[in-house]
C-alpha cells in the first residue's frame, strides 16, 4: 500500500445486483421502504420500478475504499457521499475513484458509483488509512 500517490486511480469495483438484492438488503439493514421491494408501489409513486437502496450503493463505495486500505475495516475512517441518480437492480454498478491526496498514512479518495451514464453516487469522499 506504500505506493499510493495523488492522481492514482483505485481498482474498479463492478457488481451487478440481482433482482432480489433489494429484498436481501432490506432484511440485512431493516429498511423495508416499499419503493425498494414492491414494483407496483414504486410505479404508483412515479418510479420506473423498484430502485436500489442508496445506502447499499454506499456500502459498495465503502467496500471499494476499504480495499484500497488493504481490506481491513479499521482502515476506513470517514466516508461522505451524495445520492443523485436512482440505482436499478439487474444493472451493473461500477465504483471508480481517484486518490486526491496522501498525507502520511491518510489518503483521501474521490469516488463515484455509476450505472452506465447514470451517476448514482457522486462527490463521494473517503478517508482511508494506508
Amino acid at each position, binding site marked *: 500500500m506504500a505506493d499510493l500517490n495523488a492522481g492514482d486511480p483505485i481498482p474498479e469495483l463492478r457488481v451487478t445486483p440481482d433482482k432480489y438484492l433489494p429484498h436481501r438488503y432490506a432484511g440485512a439493514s431493516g429498511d423495508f421502504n416499499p419503493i425498494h421491494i414492491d414494483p407496483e408501489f414504486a410505479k404508483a409513486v412515479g418510479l420506473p420500478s423498484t430502485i436500489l437502496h442508496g445506502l447499499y450503493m454506499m456500502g459498495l463505495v465503502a467496500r471499494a475504499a476499504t480495499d484500497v486500505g488493504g481490506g*481491513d475495516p479499521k482502515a476506513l475512517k470517514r466516508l*461522505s457521499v451524495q445520492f443523485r441518480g436512482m440505482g436499478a437492480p439487474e444493472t451493473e454498478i461500477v465504483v471508480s475513484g481517484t486518490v486526491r491526496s496522501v498525507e502520511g498514512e491518510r489518503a483521501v479518495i474521490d469516488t463515484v458509483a455509476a450505472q452506465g451514464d447514470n451517476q448514482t453516487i457522486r462527490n463521494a469522499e473517503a478517508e482511508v488509512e494506508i
Partner: protein
Amino acid sequence: MSLKTDAIGKEWPATTYEVGKEKIREYATVVGLDNPVYLDREAAKAAGYRDVVAPPMFAVVYSSPAMAPAMFDSEVGMNFAAMVHGGQEFEWGEPACSGDEITTTAKCVDISEKDGKGFYIFETSSVNQNGDRVARGTWTLIVRGV
C-alpha cells in the same frame, strides 16, 4: 420561507442495539464482503478484534433505529412523499464487534431552504458499552416543494 425550523437542536431518546455475529454475516454477504474478519471469530481475533467485526457501513444497522423517531416527529414535519435521501456521512472510531451494545442518539442540527427544497440535517452519535465513540453519522434528507 414557510419552512418550520423549530426542531433545530432537538434531540431524541437514545436507542440501544446489540451487535450479533449472524447479523454481521447477513449484512456482509449482501454487500459482497468476504474478508473472514466479518465471518469467522478466529480470523477476527487473529486480526486483533475482540470478536467478528462489523463492516463500517453496518453503522446504518445500529444507528437507523435512533433516526426513526426523529424523521417521524411532527415538530420536524417532513413531507415523506416528497423526501429523498440526499447525502450521508459516517466517521468511524472504535470498531463495532459482535456482542457490543451500541447506544445511538439523534439530533436535528439544521433545517434550511434552498431553491424551493428543504434540507433537513440530522446527526447521530453512537457509542459502545465502554463509552467509546463507534460512529458519528450525518444524514441529509431533502424534501422537494417546501
